């Protein structure tokens, strides 16, 4: 199924101010206070089919490659994106194809921002056990969230936990690397 895609590439006004503020916070190592207040472009609407994940990854990575961001950034965004999309489709929407996942992203001042929403019941991220603890090391699942947190600068769950907003400051010349 083709994904609907209407995302405008540019923003203005208050939204741009929030993004600048957010970038400033990231650059100074502060919490990205405005992440939950960002205004995103129109959503790409996907069915809950994990076969769609690659399509989204290719689209996002093409935009980042056009900016000549580092290989490390491309790998990081790709992995975090996959983990978040699979979580939304599998755990959020229970792979029910009648339920959609909505994706919206933009890149501003070398920072990549993405929001992913599912129609599931949500969850409390604090309830997810730490997969690196000895007693959890041999569990078959539970590593996606920690990989998202590792590879992005900021990961925030909103609403009932069915919306995730993430960002990563990318580098074009290796001056910034997480």
């Amino acid at each position, binding site marked *: 199924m083709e994904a609907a895609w209407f995302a405008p590439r540019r923003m203005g006004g208050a939204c741009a101010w929030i993004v600048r503020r957010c970038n400033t916070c990231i650059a100074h190592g502060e919490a990205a206070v405005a992440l939950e207040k960002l205004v995103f472009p129109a959503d790409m609407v996907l069915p809950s089919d*994990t*076969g*769609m994940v690659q399509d989204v990854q290719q689209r996002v990575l093409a935009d980042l490659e056009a900016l000549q961001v580092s290989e490390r950034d491309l790998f990081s965004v790709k*992995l975090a994106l996959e*983990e978040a999309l*699979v979580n939304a489709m599998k755990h959020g929407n229970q792979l029910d194809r009648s339920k959609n996942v909505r994706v919206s992203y933009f890149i501003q001042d070398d920072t990549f921002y993405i929001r992913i929403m599912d129609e599931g019941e949500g969850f409390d991220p604090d309830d997810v056990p730490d997969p690196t603890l000895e007693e959890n*090391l*041999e569990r*078959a699942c539970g*590593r996606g969230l920690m990989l998202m947190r590792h590879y992005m600068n900021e990961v925030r769950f909103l609403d009932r936990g069915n919306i995730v907003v993430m960002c990563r400051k990318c580098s074009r010349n290796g001056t910034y690397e997480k």
Partner: protein
Amino acid sequence: MSSQPRRRRLEVEDIGDVTYVKFTDSKILDEANIQQIGEQLYSLVDDASRRKILLDFSKVEYLSSAFLGKLVTLNKKLQGVQGRLALCNITHKDIFDIFVITGLKRVFNIYQDEQEALQSF
């Protein structure tokens, strides 16, 4: 799409009593691919009764947590039948980092190359 045809995703070779497995995909990512790879790996233990398995990651440039879950399950299956799993040639730094970040470096027997790994069995 997830309805892609089933194909062989592993190259399997016997070296003594060790089953040496190379992944044919450089990017182990799609959910359907991961399911197939998992089934083919489990089948080595469940159907072909292999007990010593060495996985070669030299071609692997990308993987996700879903694949890590398959590896954890394979490791447990082998442990359950007094078998052993080893990993080698994790040459891409990003891939090795994933094993470190998730703590799985402590769970798996990871070796520099296949010679070192084969000697460990």
